[in-house]
């Protein structure tokens, strides 16, 4: 059976556009609001990435750190992420949702327990920032057995031979990091050069769905629309931060931003 992630990419390809992937942090700024945000933006976004916050992230920039700290200050616990997903999936059973975070939380929860919780809640995939290939093989296989996608990452520093191995062992989707940066950095490589590298990766296996993330905003997204999918994260976290600063509703503001992003890639 095809995964919901795969079906979504097929649908987007038929519509001749990239899939729009959003990233928000579970519990930012409250548990209820983060659920409301998912419900709202799922009208425009094709795949939702939901971060489970960690207080010592080694690859996130200021915006996502800010969101994570906000969630943790509000007492966020890992169990909350499963509740949010469960509630979201009740109304949106076919919308793919991917959890993203750092390995220590899974390690403490127990790999099997974590995946059981993912399955019960309806999680479609996992991205673990600090569990690279090949160390991730064991966990990736456990995911596969539960029909949960384990999403591998490729970065500009990944040598071609390694890329080939990673893609060979990947599931339905691979995440390409656009540039040397933490999340939310200014796009310091031109979209043209990113796409050049991207097409090299596609040539390894054109059937794999490869999405591009890092540095993507409303300013840069349209230049990259020939990719299979595009991830926007920090810009959304920033929208929440700014809304709270100005005493505005972060849910409606976020909805507008995602709607706008979607229009730029149609």
């Amino acid at each position: 059976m095809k995964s919901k992630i795969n079906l979504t990419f097929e649908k987007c390809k038929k519509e001749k556009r990239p899939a729009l992937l959003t990233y928000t942090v579970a519990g930012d700024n409250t548990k209820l609001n983060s659920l409301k945000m998912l419900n709202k933006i799922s009208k425009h976004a094709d795949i939702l990435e939901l971060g489970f916050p960690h207080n010592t992230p080694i690859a996130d920039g200021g915006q996502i750190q800010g969101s994570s700290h906000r969630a943790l200050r509000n007492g966020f616990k890992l169990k909350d992420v499963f509740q949010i997903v469960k509630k979201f999936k009740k109304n949106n059973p076919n919308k793919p949702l991917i959890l993203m975070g750092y390995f220590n939380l899974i390690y403490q929860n127990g790999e099997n327990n974590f995946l059981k919780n993912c399955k019960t809640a309806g999680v479609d995939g996992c991205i673990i920032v600090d569990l690279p290939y090949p160390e991730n093989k064991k966990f990736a296989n456990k995911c596969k057995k539960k029909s949960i996608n384990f999403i591998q990452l490729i970065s500009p520093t990944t040598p071609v031979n390694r890329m080939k191995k990673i893609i060979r062992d990947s599931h339905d989707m691979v995440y390409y990091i656009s540039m040397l940066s933490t999340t939310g950095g200014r796009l310091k490589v031109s979209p043209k050069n990113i796409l050049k590298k991207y097409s090299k990766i596609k040539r390894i296996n054109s059937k794999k769905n490869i999405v591009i993330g890092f540095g993507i905003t409303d300013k840069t997204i349209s230049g990259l629309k020939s990719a299979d999918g595009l991830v926007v994260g920090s810009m959304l976290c920033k929208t929440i931060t700014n809304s709270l600063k100005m005493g505005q509703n972060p849910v409606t503001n976020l909805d507008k931003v995602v709607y706008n992003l979607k229009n730029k890639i149609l």
Partner: protein
Amino acid sequence: MTLKIKKGVPLIDQHDKNFMYGGKFGGNFIPETLKKPIDDLTKLFSKLRKDKKFLKERDYHFESYIGAPTPFIKLENLTNHLGGAQIYAKVVSEANGGAHKIYNATVHCLIAKRAGKKFIVGDTGAGYAGKMLSMAAKKFGLRCKIFMGAKDIKRQRPNVEAIKKNGATIVPVTSGSQTLVDAVSECMRYWVANNDTTNLCVGSTVGPNIFVKICAWSTAQISRELVTQLKEEFGKIPRKIKLLNCVGGGSSAMGFWNEFIDTDAELIGIEAGGPKNSKLHAAPLSSGSKIGILHGAAQYVIQDEDGQIGSTESISAGLDYPGISPLHCFLKDTKRARYTSASDEDALKAYRLVSKLENISPSLEPSHAFAEAIKLAPKLKSSEIIIVNSCGDSLKDKDIIKQKLGSYIR
């Protein structure tokens, strides 16, 4: 499964193919972007370790620049005052810059030169790692950035000023607890974004495996010297010796113990117990913490049930870290070393006693080890020997000591 240390193999090399010690400590839990730079560094280091020219260069700088060997002295007055064991100190604070951090910093700069990099970045807690890296960077012609928690910038002023004087940029880290743990995170994030031009020097035996290795390999100079000095003093390495060292990240202890792993020497690590009657401490080994992942490595780490890293408190900025080197976790689980802790108050008392009686004045980090020596010595026979690694000088702690004790002596 009981873990065992292999005889005749350097401790840093006793990992499996996933770079784990005893199958559960260390490893490389890193973002994909760092895989290649870490692989490159790993390959380069394994080559340089065997390169006679490089080793000659290292030894030359250790001697002419760092001032090896650092003194090994008997603390006659302290020994007489306490009664019991003979107390000695390896005065590593006599190294250029005033602490053991200079070994790791120098080696990283030499490696960065070989790698053709022009920039080097590092983290710092007490400010020593930052001060030494900025010094070495200046000497070897590298541009340098130091990440330091905003709280530590306030409490370690003398070292902050030294870093600036050496021409390095200080990046204040204002996230989280604003101490070493956040400085290391921020520094790693910076490296994620700049590894094409920049080498990273992790300031202790923590982080992804290669940084644990390079650091322990560099500080091992301390125990190489001590072996020679012991033979000079006693004719051979005495059987009953106790090697006491404070542990934060664990770099000075690893260096102090490295050559003694296969001997009968007793290895005792002293962690930061924090303020008396406070629940906060920085002692993951002696307080029963669970294994977790921090800064790219599996280790005993202070954390909550969910896996969020816990806050720590210690008067000593250099020990104020929730994790601990995977090598020390390995030494603990193999029972090769034992670990205990000393409180802020005990460390201050030890600082005062040693500074009053002797010609050395340990900083608050080694004062934790002296506190244990002061506790142990009276219970031991005069035929027994305690050696403390006095790995830092109190000058950098002048402000804190004045505030806590009313006066500063050195």
